[in-house]
């Protein structure tokens, strides 16, 4: 199937993607694309990345059977444990890759936007590791919700810039990071945290995240009778952990399911549009004004979706589901009680859908489900407490 391939120089995934940025940024995008293409085919670069992911970030991550919950649900549920990586979410996979690229390009500083703060923490981390500076843009509302991560970034030596425009969440942080990048593109590298932004980002981030899916594919092959799970499920903010996961299973018979927050479900309620440099499905009103997303999970508070997901949806290769905040909190608590694993609110979206589908027969009894647990819930503890 013609999906999940190289999107070419125009960065198209079917009708989506592209490079909708001001002329000022075009040369930078070209430069990054060229540098990435070169690096990605350089075995030394890939060796260095693989080494850091293993020796520093803790890869491969285990594939843990959810023993007790599986029994309760009548399915076999396997969890790909991105929560066990250094800094506690899959974001580190992408960031180490991009930071190495920034270093290779001779940049002095990394810029990033962040929602839940996980991408910001990962960026601050990779910058420290490689001796680069880091500036992270974060919506004021998210700063309140994710205080722990703000403090982590600061202790790691990063500058956290509060964004006060718009809904004061991830989408506004993206705008602000982009603005800042325009004015500092000479010495700064913009490290985007999900499969969004202008080409080559959605593709490059997918490539850096495909390690999730490739590892999981191998682990499933080693452990499952038929080698491949029936379902492969991941939560979707921008969609990087999902795309990275899907990349490992796209050529199998596994059903791919992306789960969005009901209040930020661009794949379900969005229309085609252009936001943050790419064309995709976007939550917006009739006029094209972008709607604010709402979710308990700061990392899913995004009104768009990575362009490749829009394409996978159109192509029928993946389907997209939504869950609401209540289901998410219940799923988080249930996993904590049955398995002793505290998942991130974001990841708990994927879990909430699996629980609902298994309990309603949407997933047939006896099915095998591979779920990417994109991150750990420590960052969310304060918000969870409030909601109980």
């Amino acid at each position, binding site marked *: 199937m013609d999906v999940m391939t190289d999107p070419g120089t*125009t960065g198209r995934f079917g009708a989506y993607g592209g490079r909708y940025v*001001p*002329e000022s940024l*075009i*040369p930078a995008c070209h430069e990054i694309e060229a540098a990435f293409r070169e690096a990605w085919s350089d075995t030394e670069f890939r060796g260095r990345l693989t080494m850091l992911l293993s020796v520093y970030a803790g890869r491969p991550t285990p594939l843990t059977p959810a023993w007790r919950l599986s029994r309760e649900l009548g399915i076999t549920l396997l969890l790909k444990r991105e929560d066990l990586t250094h800094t506690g979410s899959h974001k580190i996979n992408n960031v180490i890759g991009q930071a190495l690229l920034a270093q290779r390009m001779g940049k002095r500083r990394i810029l990033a936007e962040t929602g839940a703060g996980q991408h910001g923490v990962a960026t601050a981390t990779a910058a420290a590791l490689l001796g680069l500076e880091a500036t992270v843009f974060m919506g004021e509302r998210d700063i309140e919700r994710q205080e722990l991560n703000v403090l982590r970034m600061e202790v790691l030596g990063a500058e956290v810039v509060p964004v006060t425009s*718009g809904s004061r969440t991830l989408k506004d942080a993206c705008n602000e990071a982009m*603005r800042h990048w325009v*004015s500092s593109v000479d010495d700064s590298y913009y490290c985007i945290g999900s499969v969004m932004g202008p080409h080559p980002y959605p593709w490059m981030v997918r490539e850096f995240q495909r390690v999730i899916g490739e590892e999981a594919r191998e682990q499933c092959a080693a452990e499952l009778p038929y080698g491949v799970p029936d379902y492969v499920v991941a939560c979707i903010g921008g969609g990087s952990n999902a795309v990275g996961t899907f990349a490992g299973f796209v050529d199998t018979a596994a059903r791919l399911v992306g789960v969005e927050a009901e209040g930020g479900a661009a794949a379900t309620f969005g229309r085609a549009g*252009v936001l943050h440099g790419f064309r995709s499905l976007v939550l917006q009103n009739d006029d*094209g004004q972008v709607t604010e997303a709402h979710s308990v999970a700061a990392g899913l508070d995004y009104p768009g979706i990575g362009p490749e997901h829009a394409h996978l949806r159109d192509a029928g290769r993946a389907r997209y589901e939504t869950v609401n905040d209540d289901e998410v909190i219940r799923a988080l608590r249930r996993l904590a009680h049955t398995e002793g694993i505290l998942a991130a609110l974001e990841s708990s979206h994927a879990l909430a859908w699996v629980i609902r589908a298994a309990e309603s027969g949407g997933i047939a009894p006896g099915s095998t489900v591979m779920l990417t647990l994109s991150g750990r819930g420590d960052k969310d503890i304060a918000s969870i407490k409030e909601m109980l």
Partner: protein
Amino acid sequence: MNASLEEFLIARRDTGRSLLVPYVTAGVTPKWTEVVHAYVDAGADAVEVGFPFSDPMLDGVTIQEASDRALAAGTTVRGILDEVATLDVDVPVVAMTYSNLVFQRSAAEFCAALRGSGLRGLIVPDSPLEEVGDLADAAAAEGLDLVLLAAPSSSRARLREIAGRSRGFVYALTRMGTTGEGGEISEQAARLGRELKELTDRPVLFGFGVAGPERAAELADHADGVVVASALMRRLLDGAGAGELGEYVSSIRRALDQGARWAVHPATAPSPTT
């Protein structure tokens, strides 16, 4: 007025006049069309009307605020078009907005609607050369001039293509950055102006950070004129009315006219015989 935006501006420039294009965000006040009139009365050669967008990636705080205010007041594309249609001004009006508004239905539909309300040009800062194909065709079909942006970072090859494909004028960014006031004139800006002038006979206008009459005049030295946006919107947000804004535009007009008198524009100065 039957001339296209480009014909109109070239004609004016060729009289030796430095071009002045002031900006206003549609809907930022209920009486924003008065601001357009005040600009024209103060000597604007065209007026840029911003269609506010929720996520104006290339705009600094001032225009973000103006956009937010306009949207909060319920401004819609249809409403703006209706108001623009009632404008009775003798200079071209140019729309400026982001890709997401343009591609809502289709570029053709959007361009037809603009043209239907009498707009003469369109600026879409987040649709660079690579993404502009359909839109350029649609605009051309409607006789709407699609203005492209050129940046200090653009390569010579890109500048050539931008200069070649832009219509109406070439929008030269004075700097790497968002809209907003302040900043010195950089050697960069001057060079960009010179390069573009070498590449095209179309008017080249500077935008971004054109604040105050002196700076406008200085910049105009290196091209054919300026777009003034944030400096005006700042004053408007701080409470200035159409009258004050008109005076401010007049002051820039005067500075440009004085500057133009002693400026050296080898390529574009009217020949001594005219």
